[in-house]
């Protein structure tokens, strides 16, 4: 189709102190097309989207809607123009209900006292949630929802605007395969209604499945735009990275089936979320944990780490029974947890990269009655380069980093000293292909040095590619266990949906 583009961005430049986030970038979105925006972590994708939505101001360039230049200087401007956005970190209000979040800013009032019309938003929300196949109570508090459910709420909110242009910044990062399919159905449906969609994801399979055209950014520069049929995976990666890619799922460790058990969990139960969970983890082993959202994966990790009280069950570390009343005790024993929700639980967004990385290890940097700034800097700089964190320096505030780079910092803070047990809850969420294989290589290296690793991941290829052994959780139970050799995607999916009857 050669009609007028619904949205056109021309020569947009955006500078932050110390970085040019976007340098004369172009983007053209036609009606009824799904346009994928690709690039490494820190390439400028989210920044460009925030400029279109009015959250940020561009320094140069212009934005055209239906071929006419428009002025977008605040978020309400873009809303009025029919542009809706789902931010990478969602931007929901945890203390309000799902329904209030969906209609926030447009809450309908009724009656003499102008009270919020809860009945009406409840029903309308229910409808929108059904559309994205989410089984969520519209009156539930958003802060109590899982990350995946929050994502669905954000999508429902965006749909409620009946937008002409819908921007989705990594909506699939925390969704399971099924939920991704539902989202894709919604997207295809919107496409037939002449909505222009912009879709950001680091999963190339998703791009090939859903996108019509692709625009690639690299280091804030516009690289190219092409129809998807003219591209293959190789070419896209090359456009993004500017070089060939290393192998996926690198494994440099070889499992030692008879090494010591470092962690044993025995009969662990907690309320309605966890039931009679038992398993062991050997030194140098990568134990993958799979399961649907809500199967209790993250809750189990927090329970082991002392972050959630348990009703019954025992935890043994290196042959000794331990009881952690708080995470600080677990950390003292050499357990590390990279939590699922980096912004809320993993990082201090208002603190610098250095302070974040060194926070769990303050004792270690406390020499001669003071925290040694030099030692801190040395450690954080070496981790910044080891994980290739894109930042203006170790003093940059973490809140100013791109999503994927924040994730790298959340991992880096547990690599300062080698833990005995490293628990990673969705470690590569929002991380680009290159950095992903780098994180995997680091995991494998740690394993080869004897660290026991537990990795929770919603991505089957990641679980299958990296794990020595796989536990599948369902409804708070361990539904199945597979060795690396036995495991197949089908078996895992079967077990995950079995309802926990092992």
């Amino acid at each position, binding site marked *: 189709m050669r009609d007028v583009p619904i949205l056109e961005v021309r020569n947009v430049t955006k500078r932050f102190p110390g970085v040019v986030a976007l340098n004369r970038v172009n983007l053209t979105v036609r009606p009824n097309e799904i346009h994928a925006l690709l690039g490494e972590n820190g390439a400028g994708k989210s920044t460009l989207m925030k400029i279109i939505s009015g959250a940020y101001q561009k320094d140069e360039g212009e934005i055209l809607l239906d071929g006419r230049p428009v002025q977008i200087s605040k978020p309400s401007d873009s809303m009025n123009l029919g542009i809706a956005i789902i*931010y990478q970190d969602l931007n929901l209000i945890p203390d309000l209900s799902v329904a209030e979040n969906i209609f926030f800013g447009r809450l309908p009032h009724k009656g003499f006292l102008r009270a919020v019309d809860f009945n009406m938003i409840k029903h309308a929300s229910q409808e929108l949630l059904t559309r994205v196949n989410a089984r969520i109570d519209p009156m539930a508090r958003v802060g109590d929802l899982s990350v995946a459910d929050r994502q669905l709420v954000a999508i429902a909110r965006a749909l409620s605007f009946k937008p002409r242009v819908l921007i989705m910044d990594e909506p699939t990062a925390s969704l399971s395969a099924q939920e991704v399919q539902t989202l894709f159905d919604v997207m295809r449906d919107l496409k037939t209604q002449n909505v222009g969609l912009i879709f950001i994801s680091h999963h190339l399979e998703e791009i090939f499945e859903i996108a019509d055209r692709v625009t690639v950014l690299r280091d804030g520069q516009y690289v190219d735009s092409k129809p998807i049929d003219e591209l293959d995976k190789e070419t896209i990666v090359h456009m993004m990275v500017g070089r060939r890619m290393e192998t996926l799922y690198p494994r440099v460790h070889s499992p030692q089936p008879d090494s010591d058990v470092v962690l044993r969990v025995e009969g662990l139960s907690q309320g309605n979320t966890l039931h009679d969970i038992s398993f062991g983890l050997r030194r140098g082993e990568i134990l993958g944990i799979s399961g649907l959202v809500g199967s209790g994966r993250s809750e189990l990790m927090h329970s082991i780490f002392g972050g959630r009280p348990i009703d019954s069950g025992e935890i043994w570390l290196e042959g000794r029974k331990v009881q952690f009343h*708080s995470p*600080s005790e*677990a950390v003292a024993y050499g357990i590390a947890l990279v*939590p699922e929700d980096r912004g809320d*639980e993993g990082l201090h967004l208002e603190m610098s990269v250095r302070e974040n990385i060194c926070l769990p290890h303050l004792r270690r940097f406390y020499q001669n009655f003071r925290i040694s700034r030099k030692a801190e800097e040395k450690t954080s700089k070496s981790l910044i380069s080891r994980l290739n964190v894109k930042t203006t320096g170790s003093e940059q505030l973490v809140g100013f980093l791109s999503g994927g780079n924040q994730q790298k910092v959340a991992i880096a803070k547990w690599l300062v000293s080698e833990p005995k047990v490293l628990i990673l809850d969705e470690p590569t969420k929002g991380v680009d292909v290159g950095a992903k294989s780098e994180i995997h290589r680091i995991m494998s290296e740690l394993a080869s040095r004897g660290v026991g690793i537990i990795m929770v991941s919603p991505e089957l290829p990641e679980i299958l590619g990296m794990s020595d052994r796989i536990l599948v959780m369902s409804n708070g139970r361990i539904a199945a266990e597979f060795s690396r050799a036995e495991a197949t995607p089908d078996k895992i999916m079967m077990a995950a949906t079995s309802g926990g009857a092992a």
Partner: protein
Amino acid sequence: MNMEKQIQSDSKDSSGAREQFSGFVRQLGPTLGLIVLCIVAGILSPVFFTVSNLMNIVLQVAVIAVIAAGMTFVILTGGIDLSVGSILGLTGVLLAGIFKATGSVFLAVLSSIVIGGLLGLVNGLLVSYGNVPAFCATLGMMAMARGLAFVYTKGMPISGFPDSFRFFGSAYVGAIPVPVMEAILIFVVAWYILTKTPAGRSIYAVGSNEKASRLSGIKTDFYKMLVYVISGVLTGFAALMFVGRINSAHPLAGQGYELDAIAAVVIGGTSLSGGQGSIAGTFMGALIMGVIRNALNLLNVDAYWQQVVIGAVIIAAVLMDWRSKKQQLA
């Protein structure tokens, strides 16, 4: 995560010069404010820049500054301590009573710290392990401590102390008043703790994201308790300085001081939502409060109008804090 932080995390825009400017304001604002204020006061009143008047200011400021130092710890964790004025009153009459009974200066000093610390500990336990909102816990303590001070004294002040006792509040070493030296020493130690030690870093971390701090292995409950103990100890010591200075322990002493202390902290650029601020800023904030009060006195402004002005200054400081936050949202 509170809403403000969540929005910030999403759309924090450090748009070039403006952001740098607001960071600059946070650092240097209080200092510049103080300089401008002094110049204005000097122009309006010829007495302002006399040695005796300046001495007067620093003496008045010393007590509030010591309390504000403790308040800085509390506010950095995102808490608030409304009970400091009452703790000053109660500790003051108790330590006066102990001194009258024993005649021991050593015991008086010790009890000022211990009593203040214990009262702070009650606040701290309620807030951290008891999960009572800081506002409620310390509001309750404010009423209780004041009540106890009246119960203990039956409303009568305890007056008349020897110089040995009054040393901490009114003595001079050479030309320098002892309370000023005490205040400076306390600020140096507080600065050291907050900037150079794991405890200080942890206090900032708890204020900026409690959940993430806990998951980083920080004993969040302990630090949330500790800051109230620090606030109590420093307020107890301030009571010793105060009683020594005015040579009398009155059950009403320190009334309204919580306001001055909080104002000094906020004017000094520390954010009421926690995680951001500095002890150096509080020092400046306390001086600013002192200079404003002094200038209003010199200009013969009516005491009630003084209250109005101070209130307006506090609101202005909080507004500035808010605006610089909002700018980041832009």
